[in-house]
């Protein structure tokens, strides 16, 4: 394995010593790797992110997958991208404009070039710009010849990556296909050089990942080194950059995606509560990873059930909750729609359960791999009858950890199904997560009654405490035998009742019980002035972009505050007051204005909606422009 160590030695050399090229310092950089879905761009992006995180930058990532599993190679709809923002300051989004674009073929160039900043760096694999690929990308002529001067605004680096990669792995006995697969490591090596990164963590990863295939290890390491050396030695590149490490809070970190964080938050809540977790799910993008993650964690007392459909997933959860398990399901729009009736059963039986809604573009199958916030109404209202449920929303990948535990707390303390909203953007996006100390985690305590509450008259499953919460008695407990069901319940006894006054009463009780949750959640906070010209209200995964835009506006001396909602039903008690403290209220959302309608309806505030429904997150720039527009109107 001598060649491996030599590879890492030369790659790990401190830039600037042997390297005479100018090293410029940057605060924050956005790189996007894009190519064919088979080009390994997600891998390249992830590796770059890891290396930057280990180096000490704050990072935020956004993978962008094609909807087709295997679109024809080279086609426009088969382009896969991975964007990473890394910075010496704090970052809240994967970034607006791309500083460096790596495009592995013509289709990737065509679909991504418009996001590249003027003056930005464009690195292309010029070998891929052959007749066939150009045709597939609907180019009449080779854009790299640039007869129209379209590329003049960028620093273009045409790199024969395919050929150089093949040369670098020569002699290893690889097939052409295998050799070409290493292109992503060549590109990665080049970008490592460009941003002065130490590639050791990636080399270690390659060695571990392909331990059983020494020739693949060797090939990838050689390609990586070839890319690095290419930047170092060719005349094409005259400068490279460094992004110093960020001032993150001291501690141990790891990178986490929203879906991983949901799974870990749930596992932690269940473990600390010393209760078994039951997860019933049916695969759907972008929620499936929660099922995958939890399936690995049986040792934490977690049972997972891949049901035959979403209806079975939610109803299995109702059954498991009746049995006393901490019962969870997750899905996305179409699946949540199917779960509606079962969730209603959860509401009327007043059993605790957690329903994670990883939102994606809708309606119907919509945009499976793209993000949106358009299931707010679905979660808030999307069941028959007056069917109130708490709704809470995570704001970033790492925040999913916290909010998953909060969902558990609310479900169990208030005996109710709870919606936890995330979205494709935070579910797949990653950020550094400061690993918490176990002792800092709040434990939810769960108890099932053992004694009857009926004073000799049998057990009363709907006898309530001061919060209107009924007891969670479970099968197997002698003397507490009772029947639950979807028909209206008589208060107290839980017997079926068609009495009109009872139904009116129970409808109000169920609603009031949910409103009582407001007493147990934090008051709403606002970032920025406590009163002033404009309040921007956001919820869910748009947090980072809205926060950044408001910060930017304040930096420019504008009176702009930011209110980010994590508790959506009930809202924090002081929200109404906050909304009235500003001359104007702006509500940006990745939907047609759902939160806007709810807040106007509840608080009679003449808020302005800023709605974007493109399957893409907000850019900080477009939010800043909208803020200015509203301030000036």
């Amino acid at each position, binding site marked *: 394995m001598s060649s491996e160590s030599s590879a890492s030695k030369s790659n790990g050399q401190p830039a600037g010593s042997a390297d005479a090229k100018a090293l410029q310092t940057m605060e924050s950089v956005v790189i996007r790797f894009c190519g064919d879905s088979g080009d390994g761009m997600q891998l390249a992006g992830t590796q770059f992110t*890891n290396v930057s*995180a*280990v180096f*000490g930058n704050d990072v935020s990532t956004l993978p962008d997958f094609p909807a087709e599993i295997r679109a024809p190679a080279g086609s426009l709809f088969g382009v896969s991208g991975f964007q990473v923002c890394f910075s010496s300051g704090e970052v809240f989004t994967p970034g607006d404009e791309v500083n460096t674009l790596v495009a592995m073929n013509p289709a990737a160039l065509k679909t991504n070039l418009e996001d590249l900043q003027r003056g930005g760096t464009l690195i292309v694999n010029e070998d891929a710009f052959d007749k066939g690929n150009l045709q597939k990308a609907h180019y009449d002529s080779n854009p790299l010849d640039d007869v129209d001067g379209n590329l003049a605004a960028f620093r273009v680096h045409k790199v024969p990556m395919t050929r150089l990669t093949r040369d670098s792995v020569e002699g290893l006995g690889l097939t052409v296909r295998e050799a070409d697969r290493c292109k992503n490591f060549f590109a990665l090596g080049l970008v490592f050089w460009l941003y002065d990164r130490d590639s050791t*963590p990636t080399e270690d990863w390659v060695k571990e990942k392909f331990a059983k295939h020494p020739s693949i290890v060797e090939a990838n390491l050689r390609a990586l080194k070839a890319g690095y050396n290419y930047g170092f030695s060719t005349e094409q590149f005259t400068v490279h950059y460094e992004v110093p490490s960020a001032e*993150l*809070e*001291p*501690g*141990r*970190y*790891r*990178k986490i995606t929203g879906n991983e964080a949901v799974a870990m938050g749930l*596992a932690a809540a269940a*473990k*600390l509560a010393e209760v*078994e977790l*039951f997860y*019933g799910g049916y695969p759907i993008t972008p929620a499936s990873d929660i099922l995958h993650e939890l399936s690995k*964690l*049986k*040792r*934490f*007392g977690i*049972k997972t*059930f891949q*049901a*035959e459909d979403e*209806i*079975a997933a939610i*109803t*299995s959860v*109702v*059954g*498991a*909750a*009746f*049995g*006393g398990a901490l*019962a969870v399901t997750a899905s996305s729009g179409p699946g949540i729609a199917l779960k509606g*009736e*079962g969730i*209603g*059963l959860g509401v009327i039986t007043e059993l605790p359960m957690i329903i994670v809604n990883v939102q994606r573009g809708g309606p119907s199958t919509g945009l499976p791999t793209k993000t949106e916030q358009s299931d707010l109404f679905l979660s808030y209202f999307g069941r028959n009858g007056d069917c109130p449920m708490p709704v809470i929303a995570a704001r970033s990948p790492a925040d999913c950890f916290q909010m998953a535990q909060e969902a558990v707390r609310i479900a169990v303390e208030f005996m109710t199904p709870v919606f936890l909203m995330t979205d494709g953007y935070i579910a797949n996006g990653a950020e550094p997560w400061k*690993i*918490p100390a176990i002792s800092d985690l709040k434990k939810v305590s769960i108890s099932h009654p053992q004694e009857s509450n009926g004073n000799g008259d049998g057990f009363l499953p709907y006898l309530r405490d001061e919060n209107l919460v009924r007891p969670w008695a*479970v*099968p*197997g*407990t*002698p*003397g*507490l*035998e009772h*029947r*639950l*069901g*979807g*028909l209206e319940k008589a208060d107290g006894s839980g017997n*079926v009742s068609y009495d009109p006054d009872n139904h009116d009463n129970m409808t109000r009780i169920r609603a009031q019980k949910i409103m009582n949750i407001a007493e147990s959640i934090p008051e709403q906070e606002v970032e920025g002035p406590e009163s002033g010209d404009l309040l921007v209200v956001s919820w869910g995964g748009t947090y980072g972009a809205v926060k950044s835009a408001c910060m930017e506006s304040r930096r420019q001396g504008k009176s702009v505050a930011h209110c980010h909602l994590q508790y959506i039903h009930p809202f924090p008690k002081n929200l109404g007051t906050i909304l009235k403290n500003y001359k104007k209220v702006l509500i940006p959302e990745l939907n047609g204005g759902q939160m806007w309608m709810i807040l106007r309806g509840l608080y009679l505030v003449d808020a302005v909606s800023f709605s974007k429904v493109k399957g893409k997150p907000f850019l900080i720039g477009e939010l800043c422009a909208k803020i200015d527009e509203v301030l000036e109107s």
Partner: protein
Amino acid sequence: MSADTSLPVLTQKDFASDQEIRWCPRCGDYSILAQMKKVLPTLGIPKEDIVFVSGIGCSSRFPYYMSTYGMHSIHGRAPAIATGLKVARPELTVFVITGDGDALSIGGNHLLHALRRNVDLKIIMFNNQIYGLTKGQYSPTSPLGKKTKSTPFGSVDRPLNPLSVAIGAGATFVARSADVDIKHLTMVLERAARHKGSAFVEVYQDCNVFNSGAFEFATKKDQKQENCIYLENGKPLIYGNDRDKGIRLTGAGNPEVVNLSDVKEDDLLFHDESSDDPTPAFRLAQMRWPNSPEPMGIFRSIDRPTYDGEVDRQFKQCMEQGTADLEALFNSGDTWDVKPK
């Protein structure tokens, strides 16, 4: 503690709830409820460990009338609810009470999957060949040509054969009985209750309001012996008021009715409920009155690992490895330290 001294002896009455029964007078459901109350005390299972889960329909009111744990859920979903409960709490004894519409129409998918997984559930399907609760539409088991409120000119839907569906899905216990056939029903329910795995029992149930007399052929004293064959494991298929007829397989493997005066008993078809091959059970399920005498009883009863048992086994194995360390979980993957500056 030995079970004998610690378990109170339960009686039928102990399983009755305080709820007024609201089925129509003379509904077949009453008899099924009564036989169930008879069977439960014989199982030696404490009341609190028994759960009845039902869907929606007249029959699905059943859990309210039992003093065990229960859930009257939503239309068609009882098998999925029961699966979740049984996976979470494998030590419970879980019954599913469902109707022909509930189980085979809206809930067909869940039934299929509960059976193919072999979840340890006792699924009792009350078949009245009609939608009772919604007042008389045809159901997936109604015969072709059936005139109902929603098929005034006669149904053109081909009916499902519930037992064939169950056998096709890989059910490990499949049986049929009739509401008023008290002894037979008790026997079938008890066998189902004792089966380890998913038991599917079809009970012919008279809806005397919307589909009166649909199963007279199998319930009327003077007719049932002529029209039905009461299956007994290991015994030849013999039937008739005078037990003078039997079933033999033709060379092509088809069942044919023969007269016992012409054929020796040894040449008849012998019933083997434990055959791993589903073909014999399927053949019996295809025999339907009036085209042929109809088998009643236990068609199939075989041993297979249960789904909930297997989930629990994997689960316990993982738990026993004792590596449920949250700190290790959080710190898995690439981690890095940010030092104070």
